[in-house]
């Protein structure tokens, strides 16, 4: 008989800038190794997955990580006491720090996670990318973190325009002049604080890899994809799996060198000279992970197995030319549902 596993996760914001929650849940629901009960952890009471049919079994509101690690973890433990959680999958960069720091505490309470270490998390940070590239002999664009607006004027000494202006967790804008850098600096700092990362703009095709490392240097799965349609927020609205051995080798090399633990998304730009530049390494499963599931690598299921120490063999191959196309859908719900979550903090 299949064991029943309760998985709690965040990222239920299935909007035009979607979190990975729904695709991760879909993968877990399709598991052949276990049955699942899904607990959604919502930061906002209008996150669509809370109200979607057959997605979450139960939702609890949780405080933003910005309110403090202790507050967030206390709430998770409180939920765990009345609704026991086997595996917790955080799906946002911004909350990872809190959960990585509390990994031991959570484990002692019986909640399993499968996260990168703090060192791994810090090492691949956007602001540390040049050092990361040097350490592992990888091509990365030149970048520099800035914290003050008066540093913008001096950027022309080190960068050519256009350049990328990026938030430490999210948001990236292409800027053609100083004025645009200033505008984006203000926009980003208002949302994510400092530093803001200034990055060399590499012209080419944007390609990505979703991968899973076992923490000892082995790549358990990896699927490369090219975005075919990109929204104005830079998110993939459509993508296709690729047969690109170079991308796979690069992924394996990074996971082996870092001994990466958990899900990962590699964001690469393939230049016109067919060189691959690492633009970002996201420390979690991306929102397009269901493409990997559809192509034959159920990474969310694999992540749960790894978290629980279940037997897990690396995936072998995937289907090339598999596509995903996102869509939007108007979900009709009753204000009573909204009211319940808003007043009682659960639904």
């Amino acid at each position, binding site marked *: 008989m299949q064991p029943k596993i309760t998985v709690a996760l965040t990222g239920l914001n299935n909007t035009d800038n979607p979190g990975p929650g729904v695709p991760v849940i879909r993968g877990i629901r399709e598991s052949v190794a276990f049955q699942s009960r899904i607990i959604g952890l919502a930061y906002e009471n209008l996150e669509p997955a809370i109200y979607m049919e057959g997605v979450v079994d139960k939702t609890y509101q949780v405080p933003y990580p910005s309110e403090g690690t202790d507050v967030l973890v206390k709430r998770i433990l409180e939920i765990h006491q009345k609704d026991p959680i086997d595996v917790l999958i955080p799906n946002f960069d911004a909350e990872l720090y809190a959960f990585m720091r509390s990994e031991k505490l959570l484990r002692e309470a019986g909640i399993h996670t499968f996260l990168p270490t703090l060192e791994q998390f810090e090492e691949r940070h956007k602001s540390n990318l040049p050092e990361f590239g040097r350490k592992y002999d990888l091509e990365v664009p030149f970048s520099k973190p800035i914290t003050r607006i008066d540093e913008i004027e001096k950027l022309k000494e080190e960068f050519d325009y256009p350049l990328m202006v990026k938030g430490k967790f999210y948001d990236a804008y292409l800027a053609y002049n100083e004025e645009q850098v200033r505008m984006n600096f203000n926009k980003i700092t208002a949302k994510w604080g400092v530093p803001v990362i200034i990055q060399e703009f590499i012209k080419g*095709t944007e390609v990505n890899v979703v991968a899973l490392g076992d923490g000892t240097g082995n790549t358990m799965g990896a699927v490369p994809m*090219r975005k*075919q349609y990109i929204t104005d927020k830079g998110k993939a609205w459509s993508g296709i799996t690729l047969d690109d051995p170079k991308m796979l080798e690069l992924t394996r090399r990074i996971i082996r060198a870092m001994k990466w633990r958990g899900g990962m998304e590699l964001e690469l730009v393939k230049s016109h000279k067919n060189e691959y530049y690492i633009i970002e390494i996201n420390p979690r499963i991306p929102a397009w992970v269901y493409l990997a599931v559809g192509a034959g690598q159920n990474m969310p299921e694999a992540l749960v197995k790894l978290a629980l120490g279940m037997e897990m063999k690396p995936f072998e191959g995937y289907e090339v*030319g598999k596509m995903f196309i996102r869509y939007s859908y108007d979900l009709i719900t009753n204000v009573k549902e909204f009211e319940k979550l808003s007043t009682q903090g659960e639904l």
Partner: protein
Amino acid sequence: MRIKKNIAISDSGFVFNPTTGDSYSLNQVGKEILQYLGENRSKEEITSLMTSQYDIDAASFEKYFFDFIGMLRQFELLEESDAT
């Protein structure tokens, strides 16, 4: 001139490059030329086959043929040794 081995060409003339994710649609003539290239036929053979089948002289065909080959190169559909 050889088409890369992993390029998929369907009967409908749909060409898919699995390395880049790009896809293209060919008309009947383009499809035939790609099929001949896939059979490793020489430029002379292809010219002879096409001029016997269509109302075009060899000089005019070759002009269009090289233009088409240039496009295949640009789209990275030819083997690298043939692409320079």
